[in-house]
């Protein structure tokens, strides 16, 4: 068997290279899909509300500042379970950062109320702890944010020249919070004023400095219906309907989705042709041996079974080696780009299983095709062709 496998080493290597390329493409696609899905799950879990007017901060809702009085009004709307004032602002306001999809954000949360997002009741912490009511100058950072700056719990972070203590690092979620720095609401208000000093000239109460609010709804209610009720009954606010925001998010990433489908289809075609061609060539290369076996009495079924088993073994070995190669390279690349707060490859279980299944199925199909050609040959002809 080991000698047989050695004989197939070139074939296994050829398949491995093809499957590695395919798996790497798939891992990049998985990464982007997870990012978009995570965002979609987030926006479907809450109603995002901002004040009327033009945007001052950033986040999921366009609009102006949301005064405290409006937050109280929203809380009284029937069906609303909770309202959490928030301040969201870009860490770096330079144009180059602002134009990226993976912008680093500062998120200030009112810790005196529970997080209303139904799909993210709490952000999972990998190390340290999450923020607590009463915390000041404390920050919990996302996984990419932390790895880009080598931050750990107990570390220091400077935001707008102010020192912050890192109290926790979030688990890698492969979506927006990976690039968040989460701080108490009061600290975020300070940072907002520091970034936009013109706000100091406005006659605003401190509690009015909110770029938006996350609104939760009661279990028996429909989020879209509650959002429309808020828009109808609370004047002077911008309300996003969760399902509409999800649609907007999906359409804004439609280009990437189409690109991924195209890359994936191309990868499947190229990888599939390469794999099936390699397996078929490997079978035809052993045509002499199969001729000998026919001469010794092997029936179509016996010979076909042998070829199929060998082809499946070779395809799966090549597939597994390809997946392993892609994972090793992907992990190395991820480790390298993590220093810049990036994470390029996601090797999900469905991707790994899919790549192995793909190898086995295409290897099997190629082997069946090659076998159907081989068994039709008279043994003497097969031996002559393989000589």
């Amino acid at each position, binding site marked *: 068997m080991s*000698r*047989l496998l050695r*004989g197939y080493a070139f074939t296994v290597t050829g398949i491995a290279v093809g499957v590695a390329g395919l798996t790497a493409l798939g891992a990049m696609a998985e990464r982007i899909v997870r990012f978009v899905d995570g965002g979609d799950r987030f926006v479907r879990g809450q109603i995002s509300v901002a004040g009327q007017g033009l945007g001052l901060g950033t986040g999921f809702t366009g609009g102006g500042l949301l005064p405290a009085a409006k937050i109280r009004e929203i809380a009284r709307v029937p069906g609303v379970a909770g309202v959490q004032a928030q301040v969201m602002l870009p860490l770096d306001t330079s144009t180059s950062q602002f134009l990226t999809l993976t912008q680093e954000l500062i998120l200030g949360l009112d810790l005196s109320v529970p997080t209303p997002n139904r799909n993210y009741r709490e952000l999972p912490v990998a190390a340290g702890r999450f923020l607590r009511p009463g915390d000041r100058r404390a920050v919990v950072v996302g996984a990419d944010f932390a790895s880009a700056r080598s931050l750990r719990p107990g570390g220091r972070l400077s935001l707008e020249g102010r020192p912050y203590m890192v109290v926790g690092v979030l688990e890698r979620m492969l979506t927006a919070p990976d690039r968040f720095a989460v701080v108490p609401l009061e600290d975020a208000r300070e940072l907002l004023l520091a970034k936009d000093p013109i706000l100091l000239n406005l006659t605003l109460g401190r509690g009015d400095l909110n770029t938006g609010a996350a609104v939760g709804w009661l279990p028996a209610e429909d989020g879209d219906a509650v959002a429309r009720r808020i828009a109808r009954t609370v004047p002077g606010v911008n309300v996003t309907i969760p399902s509409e925001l999800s649609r907007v998010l999906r359409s804004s990433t439609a280009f990437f989705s189409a690109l991924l489908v195209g890359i994936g289809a191309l990868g499947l075609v190229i990888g599939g042709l390469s794999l099936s061609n390699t397996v078929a060539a490997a079978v035809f290369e052993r045509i*002499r*041996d199969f001729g*000998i*076996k*026919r*001469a*010794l*009495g*092997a*029936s*179509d079924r*016996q010979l076909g079974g042998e070829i199929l088993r060998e082809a499946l073994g070779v395809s799966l070995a090549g597939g597994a080696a390809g997946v392993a190669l892609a994972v090793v390279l992907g992990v190395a690349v991820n480790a390298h780009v993590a220093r810049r707060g990036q994470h390029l490859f996601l090797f999900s279980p469905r991707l790994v299983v899919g790549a192995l299944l793909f190898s086995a199925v295409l290897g099997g199909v190629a082997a069946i095709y090659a076998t159907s050609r081989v*068994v039709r040959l*008279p*043994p*003497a*002809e097969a*031996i002559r062709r393989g*000589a």
Partner: protein
Amino acid sequence: MLRAVGLVKSFAGLHGARVRVLAGVDLAVAPGEYVVITGASGSGKSTLLNLVGLLEDPDAGEVWLADRPLSHASRGEKSRARGRLIGYVFQSFLLVASLTALDNVCLAARYVGGDRAAARRRALGLLEQFGVAHRRDHYPPQLSGGEQQRVAYCRAMLNDPPLLLADEPTGNLDAEQAGAIREALRRRARSGGAVVVVGHRPEPTQDADRVLTLTEGVLK
């Protein structure tokens, strides 16, 4: 045991022309008979052996084995006949390079069913008998030509086939080893097996019950 009637075979030559190798060969070999077929190189001896061994189909004519016409039988029937009725020693041995000498011999039993352990014991006995048991775990490229030929002979004998076809079976052996193979072929015939040997060297003919010559596509 073996009856061939009117076998015709031609191959494609240069510029699409057909080259007729066999032009109506008749051959009958009874159980216990040892027949040697001689002829010049390229006279069609190996082609004739391929046809009667069901390794390829004649353009015309019929091969009967154990009273069954098989030239135009299904692939399955031919496979069964090759496995159960015929032992074949090829001119170029045709051992499978990825299998050891012992596994090459056992390969003959794989496709005919039966007890694999018993087949393995028989294979070891044959390798012992022909002096290559010490090389049983070696692969064909690690064996000399003579050793490969003896392994090929052991493989042909493993299923105790009623018809043994051998293409130049002593071609790569020294005098002593060639003598052992010829003696084995004689024993095979004496024990009731039909033996057909082709060769262009004169030595095998001294043991034969009949010597036929293939010339201009027919047996004389």
